């Protein structure tokens, strides 16, 4: 079923097919350059014991078209991963969530169960505690991939890391200093978010999704609101679109600034590291001027935004952003003029274009490998002018490329903010409030998709409503879901001491992946 990315699809228009047909469909479309946006288990009803089939959504960037397909309920299917690696993590997730086995999957390991889930279970029972009705570990812990040999050693890091960051486990297979393989095991941040979205009241979904990944609050909130608006057929005022874009671009500026500082820090170039730490805060404080919260909590509402700016506030914000923009440009340019920094970044953490494409990488990390993917241009949320901005592409695929993409995107974001704030200052604020969302206004048995280019990359939300208009499935796909494997690939052939720098250059979300 092909459809425009802004449209919704009635499930009646998506007759279930067999797993073989979906496999053929997927391979044919991926070969034509489509991307796999989502592949998930779709239950037949909200009944807890309901059988589930598969549902997939693909996107073609050049035509702005999406394609969706679903299968009949399944117990198992032939894994598509060997011929379509983009499906690898989705299939693992389906096995974990629904027990539907992708037969022939080369690495059918849990996605979010931690390696010591069995130990945790045993210890809890031994202490006389009761497990919060968490599902049992699906099977015995799945061993890490091991490289054998007398000179091989293994380095295990985490879940608690040596900094103020989120938990995750990294297992390096090393030959001397050289990393042969890195396996990343996540799941420590798993909060059961998707289950809360489908089981809880609709009004709680927005605050929960604002916390899907705290550093991408505006991105996920936008994706959620756009999804609901597409389902309900609600039209958003151009002014609200601009306010949302201001939130998104401020988020991009703050995070790119922080990441460039972190890359400088791990290179040992301290001036930019310390300046950018401060300038990142200036952009966060600008977001707080918009909605009171530094991360943009409470900025968005169904149908529009909860906040507006009058002419004076626009002028004040513009003044702040120009000053911070000048500061960050100066701080980053100093770093990019330093030969020793460039030397350190060049060739480190290389990911080839082919690998990025095969893994379905998205966003800034994919653009650094030469893939021209940017949802702001391929799947725009509104027809606002783009002010000479374009997907910023580099081809070298290394840490330097990821640094340069970020640096170039800073200028784009600043230009967009100037344009939007100028426009908003010239027209009076919205008089009427955004319409309230009525849960009953969502259509039954319908699939909708939203794609938002967050600062890390394309955030994709997919919702399918049931006969009673409630969510049968709500999938949240953070760009980190695609890109963590890219980081693992970037480490191959590098030294273990390159890991912090590579990690910062991706700066992926743990909770956005774990949900």
């Amino acid at each position: 079923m092909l459809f425009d990315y802004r449209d919704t699809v009635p499930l009646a228009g998506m007759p279930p097919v067999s797993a073989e047909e979906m496999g053929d469909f997927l391979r044919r479309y991926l070969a034509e350059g489509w991307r796999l946006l989502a592949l998930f288990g779709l239950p037949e009803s909200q009944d807890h014991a309901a059988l589930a089939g598969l549902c997939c959504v693909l996107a073609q960037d050049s035509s702005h078209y999406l394609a969706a397909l679903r299968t009949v309920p399944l117990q198992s299917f032939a894994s598509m991963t060997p011929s379509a690696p983009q499906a690898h993590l989705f299939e693992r997730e389906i096995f974990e969530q629904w027990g539907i086995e992708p037969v022939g999957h080369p690495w059918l390991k849990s996605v979010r169960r931690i390696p010591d889930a069995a130990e945790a279970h045993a210890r809890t029972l031994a202490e006389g505690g009761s497990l919060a009705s968490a599902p049992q570990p699906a099977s015995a812990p799945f061993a890490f991939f091991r490289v054998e040999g007398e000179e091989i050693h293994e380095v295990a890091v985490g879940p608690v890391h040596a900094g103020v960051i989120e938990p995750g486990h990294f297992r390096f297979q090393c030959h001397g200093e050289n990393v042969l393989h890195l396996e990343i095991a996540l799941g420590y941040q798993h909060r059961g978010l998707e289950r809360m979205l489908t089981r809880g009241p609709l009004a709680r979904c927005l605050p929960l999704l604002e916390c899907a990944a705290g550093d991408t609050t505006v991105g996920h909130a936008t994706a959620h609101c756009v999804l609901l608006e597409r389902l309900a057929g609600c039209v958003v005022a151009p002014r609200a679109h601009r306010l949302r874009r201001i939130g998104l671009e401020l988020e991009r500026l703050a995070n790119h600034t922080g990441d460039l500082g972190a890359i400088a820090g791990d290179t040992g170039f301290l001036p930019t590291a310390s300046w950018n730490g401060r300038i990142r805060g200036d952009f966060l404080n600008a977001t707080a001027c918009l909605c009171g919260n530094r991360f943009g909590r409470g900025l968005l509402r169904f149908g529009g935004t909860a906040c507006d700016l009058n002419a004076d506030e626009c002028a004040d914000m513009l003044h702040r952003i120009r000053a911070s923009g000048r500061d960050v440009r100066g701080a980053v340019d100093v770093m990019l003029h330093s030969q020793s920094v460039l030397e350190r970044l060049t060739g480190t953490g290389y990911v080839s274009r082919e690998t990025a494409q095969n893994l379905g990488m998205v966003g800034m990390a994919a653009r650094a490998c030469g893939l021209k993917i940017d949802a702001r241009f391929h799947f725009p949320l509104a027809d606002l002018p783009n002010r000479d901005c374009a997907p910023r592409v580099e081809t070298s695929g290394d840490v330097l490329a990821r640094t340069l993409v970020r640096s170039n995107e800073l200028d784009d974001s600043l230009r967009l903010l100037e344009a939007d704030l100028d426009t908003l200052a010239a027209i009076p604020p919205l008089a009427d409030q955004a319409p309230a969302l009525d849960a009953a206004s969502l259509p039954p048995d319908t699939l909708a998709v939203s794609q938002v280019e967050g600062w890390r990359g394309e955030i994709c939300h997919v919702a399918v409503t049931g006969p009673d208009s409630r969510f049968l499935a709500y999938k949240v796909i953070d760009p980190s879901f695609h890109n963590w494997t890219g980081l693992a690939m970037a480490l191959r052939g590098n030294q273990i001491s390159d890991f912090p720098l590579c990690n910062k250059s991706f700066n992926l979300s743990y909770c956005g992946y774990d949900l």
Partner: protein
Amino acid sequence: MLRIIKERLHQQYRTLDYPNRQPALSPRFLGRPELAPVSCGACRACFQACPTGALLPTAGREDGTPTLDMGRCTFCGECRAVCPKGAFTFTGQHRMASFTREGLLVVPGQPHAEQPTPPRCALFRRSLKLRQVSAGGCNACEADSNVLTTLVYDLGRFGIDFVASPRHADGIAVTGPVSENMRLALLDTFNAVPQPRLVVAVGACAISGGLFRDSDQCNKGVTDLLPVDLFIPGCPPNPWTILDGLISLQK
């Protein structure tokens, strides 16, 4: 080199002499709430609007303004928006940390009382090293804790640092609702800290489970699992709120 020096001059000196000078926060910032005693009758609008169940009936005044539990509050302002009597005010005050869980309750008509620092904190007056543990946090509390080490706040000048090893730490700063998958790692980290040790709960999730308190994959924060010495409310708390809280341990 000259380029770096020139840029250094442009970037100026940015550290704020806190607490002698107070930060200028956004006029839209929602800080410590204040509640006016009103008669609510049958109205329960704020109870329904609150995403985390932060409003509780006020003891002895069941028909009056509810008590607001800052330990659960995400400072979204929905209660203020729906209250027909205007009972809720969010001040611009960022100082909200409390040494006790009860100290986070905002009771209508009752003025906020400053709390004395418990004697057991005196040991860490001039040097406090904390190991941060993220346990299901969304990375907002983590980010606003991490930012304290930047030059605007310069946490180190107070003798406070985030350290890598729990063995080097005087306590832990916990963020997140404590996902079931992180519970053991959190307890193991705490047990690796030498005694005497402190526990600081940063953010609504760590204090009460926040938005995730009803999830079957999460615990209700760290409060039920470990003895908490300092509660810093917010979702996430403003960095100045966290800094103010940490400094209060040293008085």
